């Protein structure tokens, strides 16, 4: 049963986009990701209009003081289970607004964040990739929890749950990814 629900959750992430004082750059890129060109409905991703329907909160911007209580409230309005993505450099660390008198330092100053997507602004491809990776990650966590429920002795014996889950071969990564890329880090020979 849990497996079916995980499958359904992975197949149908509904996102809610919230601007927490971003310069609008990240928002335009987030909206870009929703356009027919990227066609995120392929992954079942849909933009929702109310926090009650959403599974993933995509928050942009450094969180202005005015927006902070509202961000918290929107987060609390979302039904469980929920995930939060901080989209953009500002949302991750404060970015160019770092140490600003009227801003917090990123989304995680206010609510817990599950995934940071850097970039100023973040590109739509990065955002889509982030959502897909986040779902894979949360799927693994759910799997670990199920295992812990079924075999409590693993947790009791002191093995962390994460390690108790058998590693699946990562289909996305090809061998070339792992192979050291020759010459990539070597500086160009300078001719005098």
């Amino acid at each position, binding site marked *: 049963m849990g497996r*079916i*629900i995980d*499958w*359904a*959750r992975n*197949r*149908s992430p509904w996102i809610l986009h919230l601007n927490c004082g971003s310069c609008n750059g990240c928002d335009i890129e987030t909206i870009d990701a929703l356009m*027919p060109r990227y*066609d995120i*409905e*392929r992954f*079942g991703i849909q933009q*929702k*209009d*109310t926090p*009650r*329907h959403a*599974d993933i909160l995509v928050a942009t911007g450094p969180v202005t003081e005015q927006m902070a209580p509202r961000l918290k409230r929107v987060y609390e309005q979302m*039904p*469980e*289970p929920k995930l939060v993505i901080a989209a953009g450099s500002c949302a991750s660390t404060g970015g160019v607004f770092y140490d600003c008198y009227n801003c917090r330092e990123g989304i995680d100053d206010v609510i817990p964040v599950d995934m940071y997507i850097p970039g100023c602004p973040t590109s739509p491809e990065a955002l889509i990739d982030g959502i897909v990776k986040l779902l894979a990650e949360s799927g693994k966590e759910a799997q670990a929890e199920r295992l812990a429920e079924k075999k409590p002795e693993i947790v009791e014996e002191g093995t962390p749950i994460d390690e108790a889950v058998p590693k699946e071969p990562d289909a996305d990564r090809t061998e070339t990814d792992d192979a050291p890329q020759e010459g990539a880090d070597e500086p160009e020979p300078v001719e005098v």
Partner: protein
Amino acid sequence: MSLELDLATGLLYLLVFPGFAFLFVYGLTAEYLDRKLYARLQNRVGPPVVQPLADFLKLLAKESAVPEDATARIYNAAPWTGLAGVFTAMLYVPVWSEQAAFAFEGDLVVVLFLLSLPSFSLFFGGWYSGNVFSRIGTTRTITQLFGYEIPFFLACFAPAVAAGTLSTSGIVAFVEANPLYVFVLLPAFAIALLSLQAKLERIPFDIPEAETELATGALVEYSGRKLALFRLTKDVELVVGAALLSALFLGGPAPAGAIEGSVGLVAGVVVFFVKTLTVIALLTVLKAVVARLRIEQMVDVFYRVLVPVALVQIALVLAVGLYTNGVIP
């Protein structure tokens, strides 16, 4: 037929075909086809086949909160009422032959009533969820209801007037016997299509939902299981509405109805799918090619244009009836 056999077939109708299981699967499939065609018309790839099922299961597994300001009892009961309404309506719509699963004289009125239940359940659920957006959404739902119900009823009564009966099965049998009536009833079919689109609150009549203004209107506070039920209601309503239109205006299982035995049964079901899918495809194309109207434009179009056309249609049907009976030379 013995009582047990009656009970068994009754339960079969109710739970398997054309009842619960069939409507569930066909409703989700119809949603998939609708979304896929919509995506293709927008030059996109569109969702995978299992997408509606994944959405449904995910929503079932999510937390379903009741807001503090909501009137909990009505808020919780609303999704079930609409769903029960549309599931019951299907039992009176003919599927595989001109005979519906259950039929009696006057069941057309019952079907029309049951098909407006989802709108009312949406109204009660939205109104009592205690949110400003959903209140505006529900007032728009009701305003829109007054707009489309009268043309829809008039359009559906045109074939009833032609057949001289208020039973859906009787109308199907009549249109099957006189296939040329399909052309006479074309204007009524168009009106019913538009009204069905408005009933389902799809573009261009999605004024009560209006994402950009109202954040999904009446459903704004609904989450989890209850939202899943509302979405399922919409899907099933689409299927039942398409089935009703194909029965009233397209002659139901028309070319296949005359074939006897199990071959006729299969052929009837195939014809049913072809006709309902045609209706659904028409609705999807309409959704893809036009933009949203404003609420007063919508009521205006329905009252000023569609009601007079529907009345003329009924007059036309009466005239044709008199002509074929030889009263008018």
